């Protein structure tokens, strides 16, 4: 309860009375009279008609949304007590959300049984948000007694990252699963990619006979195709704070999360078993699985990803490989720090197939830096450093894919994978 104004007046009255009596100057006591009447009257009026008993409820258009989507939030506060003369309502908006329409705060009076509503439309960014309550401040008209509290009206909102549909994802892990998929298994079977030729054996399909090769060799030869199977894929999203630099590190992380979500959806669509590892500030993972429900689970975990700092997970070499089946495909999504290429190379040397998706921070920052010789020089130096890093990655048998985040990922990924094939 805030009685600051009343206290200030009380002190002044006491001061005047004290000095008046102490110095035997009754005139000072008379000067205190208007103040005392004001204080008493104001206090009595404030106490007589103000006792806030409020109840709040909240409704959201949806508790699950995609990033960039618009949502309507409506908070209703009902007065179950006596009249509140000045009521200030404020609903804390989720961080990084933009109010498009309406207001999240309001000043009003509220009679008994009356309801005040806050209604606004917001555009939200990726994240998991907990709406707790509406902040309420109630005062009498002259502000003698103030009261503030958070009236609970909880709600949860999960804003999932948007993703692109990636096609033609080139997977070539050392170990594949028995199920059919899109990963090249390096064994003959049913598939579409040419694998080799061998002599005809009874039982082979006639349509598989390679007539030209048979004519050349003088005996029947059949064409074999590379069998495509499902694979274990681990998506590793780097959430080390140090890896996300520049003016808007959270924007860069959002791009990385979108890239990871696109990879997850692309691999799941190919029938692969996909797991997720958030690595950096903390260690969080989703065990490998299949299907749309699993995809939703992974997206929800990606929605909650945030950067942080940790001594334990400061280097990529400390990725816990116990969580990743040996011989599986690892897709790391990271802007990369100097020295990471060695750690990724060590993973490749252990038998993992490693690809790395690098959201390019330099292209993202370039537009905000403007033009000038210094900017040009810095961009050239960074491009050279980037090229050197890529060549070191290639040498370490790691497949990099640098993503210019100003443009969609899908065409860039398709072009890169076509080059690999």
């Amino acid at each position: 309860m805030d009685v600051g104004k009343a206290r200030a007046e009380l002190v002044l009255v006491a001061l005047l009375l004290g000095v008046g009596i102490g110095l035997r100057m009754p005139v000072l006591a008379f000067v205190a009279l208007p103040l005392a009447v004001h204080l008493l009257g104001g206090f009595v009026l404030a106490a007589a008609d103000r006792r806030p008993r409020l109840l709040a409820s909240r409704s959201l258009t949806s508790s699950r949304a995609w990033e960039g989507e618009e949502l309507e939030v409506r908070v209703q506060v009902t007065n179950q007590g006596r009249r509140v003369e000045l009521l200030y309502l404020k609903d804390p908006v989720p961080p990084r959300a933009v109010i498009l329409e309406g207001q999240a705060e309001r000043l009003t009076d509220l009679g008994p049984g009356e309801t005040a509503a806050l209604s606004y439309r917001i555009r939200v960014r990726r994240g998991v948000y907990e709406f707790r309550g509406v902040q309420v401040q109630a005062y009498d008209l002259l502000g003698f007694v103030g009261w503030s509290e958070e009236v609970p009206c909880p709600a949860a909102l999960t804003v999932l990252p948007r993703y692109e549909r990636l096609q033609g994802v080139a997977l070539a892990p050392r170990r594949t699963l028995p199920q059919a998929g899109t990963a090249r298994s390096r064994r003959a079977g049913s598939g579409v990619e040419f694998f080799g030729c061998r002599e005809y054996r009874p039982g082979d399909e006639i349509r598989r006979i390679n007539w030209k090769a048979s004519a050349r060799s003088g005996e029947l030869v059949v064409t074999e195709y590379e069998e495509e199977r499902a694979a274990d894929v681990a998506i590793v999203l780097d959430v080390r704070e140090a890896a996300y630099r520049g003016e808007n590190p959270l924007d860069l992380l959002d791009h990385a999360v979108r890239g990871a979500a696109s990879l997850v959806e692309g691999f799941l669509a190919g029938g692969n078993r996909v797991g997720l590892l958030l690595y950096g500030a903390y260690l969080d993972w989703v065990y490998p699985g299949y299907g749309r429900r699993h995809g939703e689970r992974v997206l929800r975990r990606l929605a909650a990803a945030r950067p942080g700092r940790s001594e334990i997970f400061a280097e990529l070499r400390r990725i816990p490989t116990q969580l990743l089946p040996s011989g599986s495909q690892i897709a790391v999504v990271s802007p990369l720090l100097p020295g990471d290429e060695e750690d990724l190379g060590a993973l490749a040397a252990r038998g993992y197939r490693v690809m790395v998706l690098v959201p390019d921070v330099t292209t993202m920052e370039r537009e905000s830096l403007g033009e000038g010789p210094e900017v040009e020089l810095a961009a050239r130096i960074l491009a050279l450093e980037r090229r050197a890093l890529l060549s070191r990655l290639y040498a370490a048998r790691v497949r990099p894919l640098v993503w210019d985040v100003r443009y969609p990922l899908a065409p860039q990924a398709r072009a890169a994978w076509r080059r690999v094939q």
Partner: protein
Amino acid sequence: MILALLGAVGAYLTAWAGLGFTAEPLWWVSLVAPLVASLGALLRHRGLLAAGLYLQVGLAAGVAAVGERSLALAAVALAVWSWDMGNLARARLRLGDPRKVRRLVLGAVGRSAALALAGLGVGLGFSSLRVRVPFWGVVGGVALGWLGLVLLLRAVRRAYGLGGEASGNRSDSVGLTR
């Protein structure tokens, strides 16, 4: 805010009138009182508003001691009204529905004016009384008055609960999340 400024200037002019519009060089130092109060109203600063009230009431007390008592009381009443208006300006009035805000402001202005006038009336009434009260009677009366105020404050504080919480104000609603 404008009302608060008018009140501060009015209180100063009334106090000046209580001294017969003196032109003593020392008098101009008293300009600091309306200046601080006006600054508080302009900046909507709680501390400056309180300091302005203290200075204006102090100035009125000085005027009452050496000049016209009734005008000093009027200056106190105006200072108190200005202080109310300054505090009202601190409320986020722009966030309200204009029609409701106008009604709220009119109510606050009326209530403050009524209280200030009542205080002025009581002050003038008491100052015109010619009753001889022994010194210790005054001390006892003041002590009793003080005790009454403190008890009233405590009662209100207890009524609204301690620690900034009002009793019975917990909502068990989980919201209408769809």
